[in-house]
């Protein structure tokens, strides 16, 4: 689950937002896959996700799962980036979550996402902050 190997394996995607674009239908896959879910294509080119986008939908998690109990209330959003890719991310730098709306412009920033006491791993990745 939250192992050092997993954290390491996911660095390119989580730290550098590495994704891929299907050569058949141009769909952005994040994370990359072996088969395009839209057209079945298997040829891809590397692409880095843009950092700007907008909120498609969001919530504020007030009853957290294990591992996030120190971070509540925790705003989380599904955001659509400028190239059409969608990612689920925490929303940072928001004092009042009630100010968030569908369509709020955001920018992805590199942040600490969670930390695991047992494995001793600190997970970094991207959070959305209001642009």
């Amino acid at each position: 689950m939250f192992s050092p190997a997993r954290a390491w394996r996911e660095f390119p995607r989580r730290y550098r937002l590495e994704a891929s674009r299907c050569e058949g239908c141009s769909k952005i896959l994040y994370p990359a896959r072996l088969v395009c879910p839209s057209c079945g294509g298997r040829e891809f080119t590397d692409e880095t996700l843009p950092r700007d986008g907008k909120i498609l939908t969001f919530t504020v998690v007030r009853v957290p799962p294990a591992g996030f109990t120190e971070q509540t209330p925790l705003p989380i959003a599904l955001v659509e980036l400028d190239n059409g890719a969608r990612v689920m991310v925490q929303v940072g730098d928001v004092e009042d979550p009630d100010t968030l709306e569908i369509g709020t412009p955001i920018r992805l920033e590199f942040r600490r996402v969670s930390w695991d006491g047992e494995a001793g791993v600190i997970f970094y990745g991207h959070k959305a902050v209001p642009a």
Partner: protein
Amino acid sequence: MREVAIIGTGLVTFGEMWSKSLRQLWTEAALNALEDAGVDAVDFITVGCMSSGLFTGQEHLVSLLADELGVAGVPAMRVESACASGGLSLRAAFAEVASGLADVALVTGVEKMTDVDGSDATYALGTAADQEWEGFHGITFPGLYAMLARIHMAEYGTTSKQMAQVAVKNHANGLLNPHAQYHLKVGVDDVLGSTLVADPLHLLDCSPITDGAAALVIASVERAKEIAGDRPMIKITGSGMATDTISLANRADLSELAAVRLAGERAYAMAGREPADIHVAEVHDCFTIAEIMATEALGFFERGEGGPAVKRGLTALDGKIPVNTSGGLKAKGHPVGATGVAQVAEIVTQLRGEAGQRQVQGARIGLAQNMGGSGGSSVVHILEVE
């Protein structure tokens, strides 16, 4: 394929059953179903269970439970499709009997959820979401449905009050179900005034954490006629299952539950029925918004009309299409792996005319819809009384 009938149902009272283990809950339900069916031997067992490993530290349930029932040796299969494990348990056994591999099968579902604390239970349930790309960020199941609710509200004007009315209706039905976890009258203001779990969903928009088990006995129609005597014959006329993307980020349309629509279409096609033919339905109301979206996906109402339909009483006990007469997951409780089996048990009870105060008069065709995760999988069965 051979025709298949349900000849027995077995429930246990759902709730926080601290004095009972997974194996006790399961065995009680199994014995109740065998007694109801009037059989003492089965030649196949299915077990629907989402996560006995995370909730209790126990896997390998098929052997554990067959042995517990005193029938070690009988072939058994565990199926998992998150919260749709119970519905899939019936579908797997249905295929076994319809194909002729088995004549009489015991269909079960079980979940023992209260041996872990709230945050560990929330984590265990969260494993039904995409762990690498959703769970990583701390999202929970109420959170995922909250996201769907917010889109439904923006797109169709669905309101928190309409969602609250789902809870009010289902708790009213639960008052009439002796097996329900909660016997609690709930008003709209109670729901809207309850604490927020994941905005805009309140505590009373959510189904609870529950220990429970449920069981059915199914048989080929030839065998069912020998066993059941004069009892009403309840046939499984339609069975549909579908998958969808597990993560919301990859889902093309966030304002419908496509897996529910597809599973429903497949079940209707097999049964030769359409939504208007259904007299009573149990749908997967893990959250109030889920019932609204499921009734739309099943074709009971147009998209966007699920919320207004609840407000107009169309899904109430005396409505056009009574939904969740058992109290639903909301009031009856939601022991994840057991839920899909318990839903079907309620439909059987309705079609037999044995539902007492919550009986839907003249119910002859019923539907049960079970759902995994945030709509990543769904199973629909249509039952008809002969």
